[in-house]
Protein backbone atom coordinates (compact mmCIF):
# COMPACT_ATOMS: atom_id res chain seq x y z
CA UNK A 1 0.00 0.00 0.00
CA UNK A 2 3.01 2.23 -0.40
CA UNK A 3 1.62 3.91 -3.54
CA UNK A 4 -1.48 4.89 -1.60
CA UNK A 5 0.70 6.43 1.09
CA UNK A 6 2.57 8.41 -1.54
CA UNK A 7 -0.70 9.81 -2.91
CA UNK A 8 -1.70 10.72 0.61
CA UNK A 9 1.60 12.49 1.25
CA UNK A 10 1.34 14.39 -2.02
CA UNK A 11 -2.20 15.40 -1.07
CA UNK A 12 -0.79 16.52 2.27
CA UNK A 13 1.37 19.21 0.57
CA UNK A 14 -1.82 21.26 0.19
CA UNK A 15 -2.07 21.49 3.94
CA UNK A 16 1.43 22.80 4.61
CA UNK A 17 2.14 26.40 5.50
CA UNK A 18 1.08 28.52 2.52
CA UNK A 19 -0.74 25.63 0.84
CA UNK A 20 -4.28 25.85 -0.51
CA UNK A 21 -5.87 24.14 2.46
CA UNK A 22 -3.52 25.27 5.21
CA UNK A 23 -6.38 26.18 7.50
CA UNK A 24 -7.52 22.57 7.56
CA UNK A 25 -4.12 21.19 8.46
CA UNK A 26 -5.35 19.87 11.82
CA UNK A 27 -7.82 17.63 9.97
CA UNK A 28 -5.01 16.29 7.84
CA UNK A 29 -2.90 15.70 10.91
CA UNK A 30 -5.72 13.85 12.66
CA UNK A 31 -6.28 11.52 9.75
CA UNK A 32 -2.58 11.11 9.25
CA UNK A 33 -2.26 9.86 12.82
CA UNK A 34 -5.32 7.66 12.50
CA UNK A 35 -4.22 6.03 9.30
CA UNK A 36 -0.45 6.00 9.31
CA UNK A 37 0.65 5.91 12.94
CA UNK A 38 2.70 4.00 13.92
CA UNK A 39 4.69 4.35 10.71
CA UNK A 40 7.81 2.75 12.04
CA UNK A 41 8.56 -0.38 10.07
CA UNK A 42 11.13 -3.06 10.32
CA UNK A 43 14.19 -2.91 8.09
CA UNK A 44 13.97 -4.81 4.83
CA UNK A 45 16.06 -7.70 6.04
CA UNK A 46 14.77 -11.24 6.02
CA UNK A 47 11.17 -12.12 6.70
CA UNK A 48 9.77 -9.14 8.54
CA UNK A 49 6.70 -7.01 8.67
CA UNK A 50 7.14 -3.97 6.47
CA UNK A 51 4.09 -2.04 7.56
CA UNK A 52 3.47 -1.15 11.18
CA UNK A 53 -0.26 -1.58 10.79
CA UNK A 54 -2.13 -2.16 14.04
CA UNK A 55 -5.74 -2.93 14.79
CA UNK A 56 -6.62 0.75 15.33
CA UNK A 57 -5.59 1.58 11.77
CA UNK A 58 -7.40 -1.42 10.37
CA UNK A 59 -10.58 -0.51 12.21
CA UNK A 60 -10.49 3.13 11.10
CA UNK A 61 -10.03 2.04 7.50
CA UNK A 62 -13.07 -0.23 7.69
CA UNK A 63 -15.14 2.59 9.18
CA UNK A 64 -13.98 4.88 6.36
CA UNK A 65 -14.94 2.21 3.84
CA UNK A 66 -18.39 2.08 5.41
CA UNK A 67 -18.95 5.83 5.15
CA UNK A 68 -20.27 5.81 1.53
CA UNK A 69 -22.81 3.13 2.39
CA UNK A 70 -23.79 5.05 5.51
CA UNK A 71 -24.24 8.37 3.69
CA UNK A 72 -26.20 6.76 0.91
CA UNK A 73 -28.26 4.84 3.46
CA UNK A 74 -29.19 8.09 5.21
CA UNK A 75 -30.26 9.64 1.93
CA UNK A 76 -32.22 6.55 0.97
CA UNK A 77 -34.10 6.50 4.27
CA UNK A 78 -35.29 10.02 3.56
CA UNK A 79 -35.92 9.28 -0.10
CA UNK A 80 -38.09 6.28 0.70
CA UNK A 81 -39.97 8.40 3.25
CA UNK A 82 -40.68 11.09 0.67
CA UNK A 83 -41.66 8.45 -1.87
CA UNK A 84 -44.01 6.71 0.53
CA UNK A 85 -45.72 9.92 1.60
CA UNK A 86 -46.15 11.07 -1.99
CA UNK A 87 -43.88 14.11 -1.79
CA UNK A 88 -41.88 13.08 -4.83
CA UNK A 89 -44.84 13.25 -7.20
CA UNK A 90 -43.35 16.34 -8.85
CA UNK A 91 -39.81 15.04 -9.04
CA UNK A 92 -36.72 15.43 -6.89
CA UNK A 93 -35.80 19.10 -6.45
CA UNK A 94 -32.72 20.32 -4.64
CA UNK A 95 -34.82 21.28 -1.61
CA UNK A 96 -36.33 17.82 -1.47
CA UNK A 97 -32.88 16.30 -1.87
CA UNK A 98 -31.68 18.08 1.25
CA UNK A 99 -34.90 17.24 3.05
CA UNK A 100 -34.42 13.57 2.24
CA UNK A 101 -30.86 13.60 3.52
CA UNK A 102 -31.77 15.58 6.63
CA UNK A 103 -34.64 13.25 7.42
CA UNK A 104 -32.42 10.22 6.97
CA UNK A 105 -29.65 11.75 9.06
CA UNK A 106 -32.03 12.39 11.93
CA UNK A 107 -33.48 8.90 11.58
CA UNK A 108 -30.17 7.04 11.47
CA UNK A 109 -28.18 9.10 13.99
CA UNK A 110 -29.99 7.69 17.07
CA UNK A 111 -29.09 4.16 15.98
CA UNK A 112 -25.42 5.06 15.69
CA UNK A 113 -25.50 6.71 19.11
CA UNK A 114 -27.35 3.84 20.78
CA UNK A 115 -25.10 1.18 19.32
CA UNK A 116 -21.91 3.02 20.31
CA UNK A 117 -23.09 4.03 23.77
CA UNK A 118 -24.32 0.55 24.70
CA UNK A 119 -21.44 -1.33 23.10
CA UNK A 120 -18.65 0.93 24.30
CA UNK A 121 -20.27 1.12 27.72
CA UNK A 122 -20.02 -2.63 28.06
CA UNK A 123 -16.51 -2.69 26.59
CA UNK A 124 -15.27 -0.06 29.06
CA UNK A 125 -16.93 -1.83 32.00
CA UNK A 126 -15.42 -5.18 31.07
CA UNK A 127 -12.01 -3.64 30.47
CA UNK A 128 -12.21 -2.01 33.91
CA UNK A 129 -13.18 -5.30 35.59
CA UNK A 130 -10.52 -7.33 33.82
CA UNK A 131 -7.88 -4.58 34.16
CA UNK A 132 -7.26 -4.56 30.43
CA UNK A 133 -7.02 -1.84 27.84
CA UNK A 134 -10.14 -1.00 25.88
CA UNK A 135 -9.79 -2.70 22.50
CA UNK A 136 -10.72 -0.96 19.25
CA UNK A 137 -12.92 -3.78 17.97
CA UNK A 138 -16.21 -2.10 18.71
CA UNK A 139 -15.44 0.89 16.47
CA UNK A 140 -16.40 -1.11 13.41
CA UNK A 141 -19.13 -3.19 15.05
CA UNK A 142 -20.84 -0.07 16.35
CA UNK A 143 -20.81 1.43 12.87
CA UNK A 144 -22.04 -1.76 11.23
CA UNK A 145 -25.04 -2.26 13.49
CA UNK A 146 -27.03 0.80 12.31
CA UNK A 147 -26.28 -0.20 8.72
CA UNK A 148 -27.78 -3.68 8.93
CA UNK A 149 -31.00 -3.02 10.85
CA UNK A 150 -34.28 -1.88 9.30
CA UNK A 151 -34.96 1.81 9.93
CA UNK A 152 -38.11 1.19 11.97
CA UNK A 153 -36.52 -1.04 14.61
CA UNK A 154 -37.28 0.45 18.05
CA UNK A 155 -34.13 1.83 19.64
CA UNK A 156 -34.47 -0.16 22.85
CA UNK A 157 -34.44 -3.36 20.83
CA UNK A 158 -31.20 -2.32 19.17
CA UNK A 159 -29.79 -1.55 22.62
CA UNK A 160 -30.80 -4.97 24.00
CA UNK A 161 -29.48 -6.78 20.94
CA UNK A 162 -26.19 -4.87 21.00
CA UNK A 163 -25.71 -5.65 24.68
CA UNK A 164 -26.50 -9.32 24.07
CA UNK A 165 -24.09 -9.55 21.15
CA UNK A 166 -21.22 -7.75 22.86
CA UNK A 167 -21.53 -9.84 26.01
CA UNK A 168 -22.36 -13.26 24.61
CA UNK A 169 -20.66 -13.19 21.23
CA UNK A 170 -17.54 -11.30 22.23
CA UNK A 171 -16.69 -10.73 25.86
CA UNK A 172 -17.35 -14.29 27.03
CA UNK A 173 -14.93 -15.50 24.36
CA UNK A 174 -12.25 -13.11 25.56
CA UNK A 175 -12.94 -9.82 23.78
CA UNK A 176 -11.82 -8.32 20.49
CA UNK A 177 -10.06 -10.81 18.26
CA UNK A 178 -11.29 -13.88 20.09
CA UNK A 179 -14.90 -13.94 18.97
CA UNK A 180 -16.12 -16.89 16.91
CA UNK A 181 -19.06 -15.07 15.36
CA UNK A 182 -19.30 -11.66 13.77
CA UNK A 183 -20.60 -9.45 16.58
CA UNK A 184 -22.65 -7.11 14.37
CA UNK A 185 -24.35 -10.08 12.73
CA UNK A 186 -25.14 -11.60 16.10
CA UNK A 187 -26.88 -8.33 16.94
CA UNK A 188 -28.97 -8.67 13.83
CA UNK A 189 -29.58 -12.37 14.40
CA UNK A 190 -30.80 -11.64 17.91
CA UNK A 191 -33.24 -9.04 16.58
CA UNK A 192 -34.28 -11.41 13.82
CA UNK A 193 -35.16 -14.27 16.14
CA UNK A 194 -36.37 -12.26 19.13
CA UNK A 195 -38.52 -9.68 17.33
CA UNK A 196 -39.27 -11.21 13.93
CA UNK A 197 -42.15 -8.84 13.16
CA UNK A 198 -39.70 -5.93 13.17
CA UNK A 199 -37.24 -7.57 10.83
CA UNK A 200 -39.29 -8.90 7.92
CA UNK A 201 -42.41 -7.88 6.06
CA UNK A 202 -43.68 -4.64 4.55
CA UNK A 203 -43.49 -2.40 7.60
CA UNK A 204 -39.91 -2.32 8.91
CA UNK A 205 -37.92 -1.02 5.96
CA UNK A 206 -39.57 2.31 5.16
CA UNK A 207 -40.24 4.97 7.74
CA UNK A 208 -43.56 6.55 6.88
CA UNK A 209 -44.23 8.33 10.18
CA UNK A 210 -42.27 11.27 11.54
CA UNK A 211 -38.73 11.40 12.91
CA UNK A 212 -38.58 13.30 16.20
CA UNK A 213 -41.93 14.77 15.25
CA UNK A 214 -40.66 16.10 11.93
CA UNK A 215 -42.52 15.50 8.70
CA UNK A 216 -45.05 12.86 9.61
CA UNK A 217 -47.29 11.56 6.92
CA UNK A 218 -49.44 8.77 5.68
CA UNK A 219 -48.56 6.32 2.96
CA UNK A 220 -50.00 7.08 -0.46
CA UNK A 221 -52.31 4.51 -2.03
CA UNK A 222 -50.59 1.52 -3.50
CA UNK A 223 -47.31 2.06 -1.71
CA UNK A 224 -45.63 -1.10 -0.49
CA UNK A 225 -42.53 -1.03 1.66
CA UNK A 226 -41.68 -4.63 0.90
CA UNK A 227 -38.11 -5.36 -0.16
CA UNK A 228 -37.65 -7.36 -3.36
CA UNK A 229 -36.72 -10.44 -1.35
CA UNK A 230 -39.82 -10.13 0.82
CA UNK A 231 -41.95 -9.83 -2.31
CA UNK A 232 -40.35 -12.96 -3.68
CA UNK A 233 -40.89 -14.91 -0.46
CA UNK A 234 -44.57 -13.96 -0.43
CA UNK A 235 -45.05 -14.91 -4.06
CA UNK A 236 -45.17 -11.45 -5.65
CA UNK A 237 -43.10 -11.14 -8.83
CA UNK A 238 -40.26 -8.64 -8.46
CA UNK A 239 -40.60 -5.70 -10.84
CA UNK A 240 -37.36 -3.89 -10.00
CA UNK A 241 -34.58 -4.41 -12.50
CA UNK A 242 -30.86 -4.88 -12.09
CA UNK A 243 -30.06 -1.15 -12.22
CA UNK A 244 -32.75 -0.28 -9.65
CA UNK A 245 -31.13 -2.74 -7.29
CA UNK A 246 -27.59 -1.57 -7.99
CA UNK A 247 -28.52 2.10 -7.63
CA UNK A 248 -30.15 1.26 -4.37
CA UNK A 249 -33.10 3.65 -4.12
CA UNK A 250 -35.23 0.77 -2.85
CA UNK A 251 -36.50 -0.34 0.57
CA UNK A 252 -34.00 -2.31 2.60
CA UNK A 253 -31.79 -2.20 5.68
CA UNK A 254 -30.02 1.15 5.95
CA UNK A 255 -26.66 0.37 4.39
CA UNK A 256 -27.32 -2.63 2.20
CA UNK A 257 -29.19 -1.19 -0.79
CA UNK A 258 -26.67 0.65 -2.96
CA UNK A 259 -24.20 -1.55 -4.79
CA UNK A 260 -22.00 1.37 -5.86
CA UNK A 261 -21.52 2.69 -2.32
CA UNK A 262 -20.60 -0.81 -1.18
CA UNK A 263 -18.18 -1.29 -4.07
CA UNK A 264 -16.55 2.04 -3.24
CA UNK A 265 -15.94 0.72 0.25
CA UNK A 266 -14.73 -2.57 -1.19
CA UNK A 267 -12.16 -0.70 -3.30
CA UNK A 268 -10.72 0.99 -0.22
CA UNK A 269 -10.62 -2.29 1.70
CA UNK A 270 -8.90 -4.10 -1.15
CA UNK A 271 -6.40 -1.33 -1.98
CA UNK A 272 -5.28 -1.12 1.62
CA UNK A 273 -5.21 -4.89 1.97
CA UNK A 274 -7.55 -4.89 4.96
CA UNK A 275 -9.99 -7.33 3.41
CA UNK A 276 -9.14 -10.40 1.42
CA UNK A 277 -10.13 -10.26 -2.25
CA UNK A 278 -10.25 -14.05 -2.27
CA UNK A 279 -13.03 -14.20 0.31
CA UNK A 280 -14.93 -11.36 -1.33
CA UNK A 281 -14.74 -12.77 -4.83
CA UNK A 282 -15.53 -16.32 -3.84
CA UNK A 283 -18.70 -15.24 -2.01
CA UNK A 284 -19.97 -13.74 -5.25
CA UNK A 285 -18.82 -16.75 -7.26
CA UNK A 286 -20.49 -19.16 -4.83
CA UNK A 287 -23.75 -17.24 -4.89
CA UNK A 288 -23.71 -16.88 -8.67
CA UNK A 289 -23.00 -20.58 -9.29
CA UNK A 290 -25.71 -21.76 -6.91
CA UNK A 291 -28.28 -19.31 -8.23
CA UNK A 292 -27.38 -20.27 -11.81
CA UNK A 293 -27.92 -23.94 -11.02
CA UNK A 294 -31.32 -23.10 -9.54
CA UNK A 295 -32.12 -21.08 -12.67
CA UNK A 296 -31.40 -24.13 -14.78
CA UNK A 297 -32.84 -26.92 -12.67
CA UNK A 298 -35.03 -25.25 -10.02
CA UNK A 299 -38.77 -25.64 -9.77
CA UNK A 300 -40.68 -23.32 -12.08
CA UNK A 301 -43.14 -22.40 -9.30
CA UNK A 302 -40.43 -21.16 -6.98
CA UNK A 303 -39.93 -17.44 -7.69
CA UNK A 304 -36.61 -17.32 -5.87
CA UNK A 305 -35.27 -20.28 -7.86
CA UNK A 306 -36.22 -18.60 -11.12
CA UNK A 307 -34.75 -15.25 -10.02
CA UNK A 308 -31.79 -14.57 -12.36
CA UNK A 309 -28.42 -15.32 -10.79
CA UNK A 310 -27.05 -11.80 -11.28
CA UNK A 311 -30.10 -10.40 -9.49
CA UNK A 312 -29.39 -12.57 -6.46
CA UNK A 313 -26.00 -10.89 -6.16
CA UNK A 314 -27.37 -7.34 -6.02
CA UNK A 315 -30.53 -7.90 -3.98
CA UNK A 316 -30.79 -7.82 -0.21
CA UNK A 317 -27.66 -7.82 1.87
CA UNK A 318 -25.63 -10.06 -0.40
CA UNK A 319 -23.08 -7.49 -1.56
CA UNK A 320 -22.89 -5.82 1.85
CA UNK A 321 -22.36 -9.15 3.56
CA UNK A 322 -19.77 -10.26 1.04
CA UNK A 323 -17.73 -7.06 1.32
CA UNK A 324 -17.96 -6.13 4.99
CA UNK A 325 -19.09 -9.20 6.93
CA UNK A 326 -17.57 -12.23 5.25
CA UNK A 327 -14.14 -10.58 5.14
CA UNK A 328 -14.02 -9.89 8.89
CA UNK A 329 -10.43 -11.02 9.58
CA UNK A 330 -11.31 -12.39 13.03
CA UNK A 331 -14.16 -14.71 12.11
CA UNK A 332 -13.28 -15.73 8.56
CA UNK A 333 -10.96 -18.48 7.43
CA UNK A 334 -7.30 -17.50 7.58
CA UNK A 335 -5.56 -19.93 5.26
CA UNK A 336 -5.39 -18.70 1.68
CA UNK A 337 -7.04 -21.81 0.25
CA UNK A 338 -9.51 -21.83 3.13
CA UNK A 339 -10.68 -18.33 2.15
CA UNK A 340 -11.84 -19.64 -1.21
CA UNK A 341 -13.80 -22.48 0.36
CA UNK A 342 -15.19 -20.29 3.14
CA UNK A 343 -16.40 -17.59 0.75
CA UNK A 344 -17.82 -20.01 -1.77
CA UNK A 345 -19.85 -21.79 0.91
CA UNK A 346 -21.22 -18.48 2.21
CA UNK A 347 -22.55 -17.60 -1.23
CA UNK A 348 -23.91 -21.11 -1.66
CA UNK A 349 -25.72 -21.24 1.69
CA UNK A 350 -27.09 -17.69 1.30
CA UNK A 351 -28.78 -18.54 -1.99
CA UNK A 352 -29.90 -21.93 -0.68
CA UNK A 353 -31.70 -20.27 2.23
CA UNK A 354 -33.30 -17.68 -0.04
CA UNK A 355 -34.55 -20.28 -2.48
CA UNK A 356 -35.47 -23.20 -0.29
CA UNK A 357 -36.74 -21.56 2.88
CA UNK A 358 -39.64 -19.19 2.24
CA UNK A 359 -39.76 -18.37 5.96
CA UNK A 360 -36.44 -16.54 5.67
CA UNK A 361 -36.42 -14.19 2.69
CA UNK A 362 -32.77 -13.26 3.24
CA UNK A 363 -30.10 -15.86 3.85
CA UNK A 364 -26.90 -13.82 3.93
CA UNK A 365 -26.80 -13.29 7.69
CA UNK A 366 -27.49 -16.94 8.44
CA UNK A 367 -24.98 -18.09 5.85
CA UNK A 368 -22.15 -15.96 7.24
CA UNK A 369 -22.88 -16.96 10.84
CA UNK A 370 -22.99 -20.62 9.86
CA UNK A 371 -19.68 -20.41 8.04
CA UNK A 372 -18.16 -18.44 10.94
CA UNK A 373 -18.69 -21.57 12.97
CA UNK A 374 -17.00 -23.70 10.31
CA UNK A 375 -14.08 -21.39 9.52
CA UNK A 376 -11.71 -23.00 12.06
CA UNK A 377 -12.59 -26.45 10.70
CA UNK A 378 -11.89 -25.32 7.13
CA UNK A 379 -8.54 -23.91 8.23
CA UNK A 380 -7.69 -27.09 10.08
CA UNK A 381 -8.47 -29.23 7.03
CA UNK A 382 -6.42 -27.00 4.73
CA UNK A 383 -3.45 -27.15 7.08
CA UNK A 384 -3.76 -30.92 7.47
CA UNK A 385 -3.87 -31.44 3.71
CA UNK A 386 -0.76 -29.34 3.36
CA UNK A 387 1.03 -31.25 6.10
CA UNK A 388 0.13 -34.58 4.52
CA UNK A 389 1.26 -33.39 1.10
CA UNK A 390 4.62 -32.32 2.44
CA UNK A 391 5.05 -35.52 4.44
CA UNK A 392 4.39 -37.52 1.29
CA UNK A 393 6.90 -35.43 -0.62
CA UNK A 394 9.50 -36.02 2.07
CA UNK A 395 8.80 -39.73 2.07
CA UNK A 396 9.17 -39.91 -1.69
CA UNK A 397 12.67 -38.41 -1.56
Amino acid at each position, binding site marked *: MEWLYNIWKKFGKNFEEGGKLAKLSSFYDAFDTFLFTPNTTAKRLGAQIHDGSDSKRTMILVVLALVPAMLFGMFNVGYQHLLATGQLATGLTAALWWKAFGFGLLAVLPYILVSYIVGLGIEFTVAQIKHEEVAEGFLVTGFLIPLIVPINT*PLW*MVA*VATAFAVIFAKE*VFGGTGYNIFNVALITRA*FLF*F*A*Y*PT*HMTGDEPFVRIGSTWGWDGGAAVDGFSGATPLTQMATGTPVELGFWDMANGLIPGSVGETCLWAILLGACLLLCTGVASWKTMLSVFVGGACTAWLFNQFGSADNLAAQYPWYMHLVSGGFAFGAVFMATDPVTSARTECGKWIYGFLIGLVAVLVRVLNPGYPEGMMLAILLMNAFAPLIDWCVVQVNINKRLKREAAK
Partner: protein
Amino acid sequence: MLSQKTKDTLLGPLNVNNPVVVQILGICSALAVTVQLKPALVMGIAVTIIVAMSNVIVSLIRKSIPMRVRIIVQLVVVAALVTLVSEILKAFAYDVAMQLSVYLGLIITNCILMGRLEAFAMTNNAWDSFLDGLGNGFGYALVLVIVAVVRELLGAGQLLGFQVIPESFYAAGYENNGMMLMPAMALILVGCIIWAHRAINDKEGK
Protein backbone atom coordinates in the same frame (compact mmCIF):
# COMPACT_ATOMS: atom_id res chain seq x y z
CA MET B 1 -30.81 -31.82 63.94
CA LEU B 2 -29.07 -33.48 61.03
CA SER B 3 -25.51 -34.66 61.12
CA GLN B 4 -22.96 -32.95 58.88
CA LYS B 5 -22.89 -35.88 56.49
CA THR B 6 -26.66 -36.02 56.09
CA LYS B 7 -26.71 -32.29 55.55
CA ASP B 8 -24.13 -32.58 52.79
CA THR B 9 -26.07 -35.40 51.19
CA LEU B 10 -29.28 -33.42 51.14
CA LEU B 11 -28.08 -29.86 50.53
CA GLY B 12 -24.87 -30.43 48.56
CA PRO B 13 -26.71 -31.08 45.28
CA LEU B 14 -28.55 -27.79 45.63
CA ASN B 15 -25.38 -25.76 45.31
CA VAL B 16 -21.79 -26.99 45.24
CA ASN B 17 -22.62 -30.34 43.68
CA ASN B 18 -25.62 -29.36 41.57
CA PRO B 19 -26.41 -32.02 38.97
CA VAL B 20 -27.15 -29.51 36.20
CA VAL B 21 -24.74 -26.63 36.65
CA VAL B 22 -21.80 -28.52 38.16
CA GLN B 23 -22.09 -32.05 36.79
CA ILE B 24 -23.73 -30.82 33.54
CA LEU B 25 -26.26 -33.66 33.55
CA GLY B 26 -29.87 -33.55 32.38
CA ILE B 27 -29.26 -30.56 30.09
CA CYS B 28 -31.47 -31.94 27.33
CA SER B 29 -34.67 -31.94 29.32
CA ALA B 30 -33.69 -28.65 30.96
CA LEU B 31 -33.79 -27.06 27.51
CA ALA B 32 -36.96 -28.77 26.38
CA VAL B 33 -39.41 -28.25 29.22
CA THR B 34 -38.52 -24.75 30.41
CA VAL B 35 -40.49 -22.62 27.96
CA GLN B 36 -43.12 -22.21 30.65
CA LEU B 37 -42.90 -22.40 34.42
CA LYS B 38 -45.69 -24.93 34.95
CA PRO B 39 -44.27 -27.87 32.99
CA ALA B 40 -40.84 -27.08 34.44
CA LEU B 41 -42.24 -27.29 37.97
CA VAL B 42 -44.05 -30.54 37.23
CA MET B 43 -40.97 -31.98 35.59
CA GLY B 44 -38.85 -30.97 38.58
CA ILE B 45 -41.28 -32.61 41.01
CA ALA B 46 -41.58 -35.75 38.86
CA VAL B 47 -37.82 -36.16 38.63
CA THR B 48 -37.43 -35.53 42.37
CA ILE B 49 -39.98 -38.21 43.24
CA ILE B 50 -38.53 -40.71 40.79
CA VAL B 51 -34.92 -40.15 41.83
CA ALA B 52 -35.77 -40.41 45.53
CA MET B 53 -37.95 -43.53 45.16
CA SER B 54 -35.65 -45.38 42.79
CA ASN B 55 -32.68 -44.53 45.01
CA VAL B 56 -34.48 -46.10 47.96
CA ILE B 57 -35.55 -49.21 46.06
CA VAL B 58 -32.16 -49.81 44.48
CA SER B 59 -30.44 -49.18 47.79
CA LEU B 60 -32.66 -51.75 49.51
CA ILE B 61 -31.97 -54.46 46.97
CA ARG B 62 -28.37 -53.43 46.24
CA LYS B 63 -26.86 -56.44 47.99
CA SER B 64 -28.83 -58.95 45.95
CA ILE B 65 -28.24 -57.33 42.53
CA PRO B 66 -25.62 -59.22 40.52
CA MET B 67 -22.97 -56.71 39.44
CA ARG B 68 -23.10 -57.75 35.79
CA VAL B 69 -26.77 -56.98 35.28
CA ARG B 70 -27.10 -54.03 37.65
CA ILE B 71 -27.82 -51.47 34.92
CA ILE B 72 -30.75 -53.52 33.65
CA VAL B 73 -32.15 -53.91 37.14
CA GLN B 74 -31.78 -50.17 37.76
CA LEU B 75 -33.50 -49.41 34.48
CA VAL B 76 -36.41 -51.67 35.33
CA VAL B 77 -36.89 -49.90 38.66
CA VAL B 78 -36.72 -46.45 37.06
CA ALA B 79 -38.96 -47.44 34.17
CA ALA B 80 -41.60 -48.78 36.52
CA LEU B 81 -41.58 -45.53 38.52
CA VAL B 82 -41.63 -43.35 35.41
CA THR B 83 -44.62 -45.27 34.06
CA LEU B 84 -46.37 -44.82 37.37
CA VAL B 85 -45.71 -41.06 37.48
CA SER B 86 -46.68 -40.49 33.87
CA GLU B 87 -49.93 -42.42 34.30
CA ILE B 88 -50.78 -40.34 37.37
CA LEU B 89 -49.98 -37.13 35.48
CA LYS B 90 -52.11 -38.21 32.54
CA ALA B 91 -54.97 -38.88 34.90
CA PHE B 92 -54.80 -35.70 36.98
CA ALA B 93 -52.87 -33.15 34.94
CA TYR B 94 -53.46 -34.10 31.34
CA ASP B 95 -52.48 -30.74 29.79
CA VAL B 96 -49.11 -30.63 31.49
CA ALA B 97 -48.46 -34.27 30.63
CA MET B 98 -49.10 -33.43 26.99
CA GLN B 99 -46.77 -30.41 27.17
CA LEU B 100 -44.03 -32.57 28.63
CA SER B 101 -44.74 -35.20 25.96
CA VAL B 102 -41.76 -37.49 25.42
CA TYR B 103 -39.61 -35.82 28.02
CA LEU B 104 -41.64 -37.45 30.76
CA GLY B 105 -40.91 -40.88 29.37
CA LEU B 106 -37.32 -39.90 28.73
CA ILE B 107 -36.74 -39.47 32.47
CA ILE B 108 -35.82 -43.15 32.23
CA THR B 109 -32.66 -42.23 30.40
CA ASN B 110 -32.02 -39.04 32.36
CA CYS B 111 -28.35 -39.03 33.26
CA ILE B 112 -29.06 -37.69 36.74
CA LEU B 113 -31.01 -40.85 37.64
CA MET B 114 -28.49 -43.33 36.39
CA GLY B 115 -25.71 -41.26 37.89
CA ARG B 116 -27.25 -41.21 41.37
CA LEU B 117 -28.16 -44.90 41.28
CA GLU B 118 -24.68 -45.93 40.21
CA ALA B 119 -22.71 -43.47 42.30
CA PHE B 120 -24.76 -43.36 45.45
CA ALA B 121 -27.61 -45.82 45.90
CA MET B 122 -25.49 -48.87 45.09
CA THR B 123 -23.15 -48.15 48.01
CA ASN B 124 -25.28 -46.41 50.63
CA ASN B 125 -28.16 -47.26 52.90
CA ALA B 126 -31.78 -46.48 52.11
CA TRP B 127 -32.18 -43.34 54.26
CA ASP B 128 -29.07 -41.65 52.89
CA SER B 129 -30.05 -42.66 49.36
CA PHE B 130 -33.46 -41.14 49.88
CA LEU B 131 -31.95 -37.84 51.02
CA ASP B 132 -29.49 -37.89 48.14
CA GLY B 133 -32.35 -38.45 45.68
CA LEU B 134 -34.35 -35.60 47.17
CA GLY B 135 -31.36 -33.28 47.10
CA ASN B 136 -30.49 -34.04 43.48
CA GLY B 137 -34.11 -33.79 42.42
CA PHE B 138 -34.41 -30.39 44.08
CA GLY B 139 -31.11 -29.26 42.61
CA TYR B 140 -32.37 -30.16 39.16
CA ALA B 141 -35.78 -28.58 39.80
CA LEU B 142 -34.12 -25.40 41.07
CA VAL B 143 -32.22 -24.81 37.83
CA LEU B 144 -35.29 -25.68 35.77
CA VAL B 145 -37.42 -23.21 37.67
CA ILE B 146 -34.88 -20.38 37.36
CA VAL B 147 -34.55 -20.93 33.61
CA ALA B 148 -38.31 -21.29 33.17
CA VAL B 149 -39.08 -18.11 35.13
CA VAL B 150 -36.76 -16.05 32.93
CA ARG B 151 -37.99 -17.65 29.72
CA GLU B 152 -41.70 -17.37 30.45
CA LEU B 153 -41.39 -13.88 31.88
CA LEU B 154 -39.38 -12.42 29.00
CA GLY B 155 -40.73 -14.69 26.28
CA ALA B 156 -44.44 -14.46 26.99
CA GLY B 157 -44.74 -11.84 29.75
CA GLN B 158 -46.41 -14.44 31.94
CA LEU B 159 -45.72 -16.59 34.98
CA LEU B 160 -47.64 -19.85 35.44
CA GLY B 161 -49.95 -18.62 32.69
CA PHE B 162 -50.85 -15.32 34.41
CA GLN B 163 -49.99 -12.06 32.68
CA VAL B 164 -47.29 -10.47 34.82
CA ILE B 165 -46.00 -7.67 32.60
CA PRO B 166 -48.73 -5.02 32.57
CA GLU B 167 -50.54 -3.89 29.44
CA SER B 168 -49.13 -0.38 29.84
CA PHE B 169 -45.65 -1.76 29.08
CA TYR B 170 -46.84 -3.17 25.78
CA ALA B 171 -48.62 0.08 25.00
CA ALA B 172 -45.31 1.89 25.56
CA GLY B 173 -43.59 -0.26 22.95
CA TYR B 174 -42.33 -3.21 24.96
CA GLU B 175 -42.45 -6.57 23.22
CA ASN B 176 -42.00 -10.17 24.19
CA ASN B 177 -38.67 -11.65 23.23
CA GLY B 178 -39.24 -14.52 20.79
CA MET B 179 -35.67 -15.69 21.23
CA MET B 180 -36.50 -16.73 24.79
CA LEU B 181 -38.89 -19.36 23.46
CA MET B 182 -36.11 -21.06 21.54
CA PRO B 183 -34.01 -23.88 23.03
CA ALA B 184 -30.85 -21.96 22.15
CA MET B 185 -31.71 -19.27 24.69
CA ALA B 186 -32.26 -21.91 27.39
CA LEU B 187 -28.73 -23.10 26.81
CA ILE B 188 -27.41 -19.55 27.11
CA LEU B 189 -29.41 -19.07 30.32
CA VAL B 190 -28.02 -22.30 31.80
CA GLY B 191 -24.61 -20.95 30.81
CA CYS B 192 -25.35 -17.73 32.68
CA ILE B 193 -26.41 -19.67 35.78
CA ILE B 194 -23.19 -21.69 35.62
CA TRP B 195 -21.25 -18.43 35.22
CA ALA B 196 -22.89 -16.83 38.25
CA HIS B 197 -22.60 -20.04 40.26
CA ARG B 198 -18.88 -20.41 39.61
CA ALA B 199 -18.23 -16.72 40.22
CA ILE B 200 -19.94 -16.84 43.62
CA ASN B 201 -18.44 -20.16 44.69
CA ASP B 202 -14.94 -19.22 43.58
CA LYS B 203 -15.16 -16.12 45.72
CA GLU B 204 -16.18 -18.23 48.71
CA GLY B 205 -13.36 -20.63 47.93
CA LYS B 206 -15.51 -23.74 47.59
